[in-house]
């Protein structure tokens, strides 16, 4: 068996946290809060380790004998500047925050703009790429609900039209609930596999 000690600890802690979620027993709640607190600290440390790993990967790319990546150099320089000024001024300093957000926000906004264009292009290519009934239904429903959401037909005073529109508007809600129910059941069973020790995303 792979990593028996780590598996036993994971199962025991998983069961205690799960029971603490359902049973309102003071001692169980205290243990659950303590364990989740530890998990948050470990997760914070893991983020730091991940960032060190990210820096090391880009450092090796900059120093690679062949195919050096200049953009990795830009990333390292930006990272160093952010860390130095962040430590010197403090992360809550308004000037520091203004500089960071003035760089980060326009870049993220431009990425979202690229996304909007590429999605529009992908929608146009969809029927060309995948010709099946599901694609046709997807395209028709997208156009239909874009029209409905625009409020174009919402002002109709005819009660039959209003009723039909109301029924149509329930369809995406019902579909989304069905999908979320399926995802919820999948998440439950995935969690159970970890609680039973059959899935071990850790090697110990």
């Amino acid at each position, binding site marked *: 068996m792979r990593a028996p000690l780590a598996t036993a600890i994971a199962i025991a802690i998983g069961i205690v946290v799960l029971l603490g979620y359902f049973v309102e027993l003071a001692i169980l709640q205290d243990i659950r809060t303590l364990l989740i607190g530890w998990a948050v600290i470990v*997760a914070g440390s893991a983020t730091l380790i*991940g960032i060190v*790993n990210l820096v090391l990967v880009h450092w090796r790319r900059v120093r690679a004998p062949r195919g050096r990546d200049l953009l990795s150099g830009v990333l390292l320089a930006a990272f160093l500047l952010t860390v130095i000024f962040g430590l010197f001024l403090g992360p809550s300093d308004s000037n520091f925050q203004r500089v960071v957000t003035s760089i980060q926000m326009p870049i993220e906004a431009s*990425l979202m703009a690229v996304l909007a264009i590429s999605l529009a292009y992908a929608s146009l290519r969809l029927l060309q790429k995948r010709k099946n009934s599901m694609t046709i239904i997807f395209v028709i429903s997208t156009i239909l609900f874009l029209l409905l959401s625009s409020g174009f037909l919402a002002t109709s005073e005819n009660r039959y039209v209003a009723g039909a529109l109301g029924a149509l508007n329930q369809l995406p809600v019902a579909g989304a609930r069905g999908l979320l129910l399926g995802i919820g059941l999948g998440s439950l069973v995935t969690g159970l596999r970890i609680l039973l020790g059959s899935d071990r995303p850790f090697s110990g």
Partner: protein
Amino acid sequence: MISFTAVAGLAVVLGATVILFFLNVTLREKLARSLRPIAAFQHLQRAISLAVEDGKRLHVSLGKSDILSPDSASSLVGLSILERITQLSMISDRPPIATSGQGNLSILSQDTLRAGYRANNTLEQYDPDRGRLAGPTPLSYTAATIAVIHDENFSTHLLVGSFGPEVGLLTEAIDQEKAFSLAASDSLPAQAVLFATAQEPLIGEELFAIPGYLQTGPIHTASLLTQDVLRWLFIASILVGCALKMIGII
């Protein structure tokens, strides 16, 4: 001390555990043959074989969910897939690469890769740089993963985890490289984007079927059947609830 909701929740968890255990123990032999064919998984298995034969890389993108958050199940599925992919591509010259958008997920991806190598007694081939934190925010993760997609010689990409609509930029980059992509997410906006942009999108709970179809283990196939049983029980309970409401009992 214990509310009705808590009792119902515990009953669902315990019921699901019993069904999963029963199916895994009693129907172990029959489970592997019980899966219906899904074209996306057949294409995936073919793409993995071709990648190994052609000496090209496989890329598993694990998304950006924190392992402590409620949407971590999709990332855990991604880690199961990563381990299986590592084992399947062990004979390839170019091992798989995993990218993630959370520090704890990147550590788990490194550990999963390591476990795959250790299971095959080839631990000396393990390189921790193949499990990378691409970026700590959703858009920095996307931007860095786009660079990875263009830089490395990938032929197959599996995008399995929690993504936002920005995942469309990843599938667009994969299309530009003329590579194969199978994508699944637990987020509804991401599923809509993936349906329009990915080559093989998986919708809803199909995400949780990937390990079963990659023959990761009988417990994964038993999990699929457990989900089916639970789904029918939920449908029955919803219908009974509707009927009781209509006749005025509740």
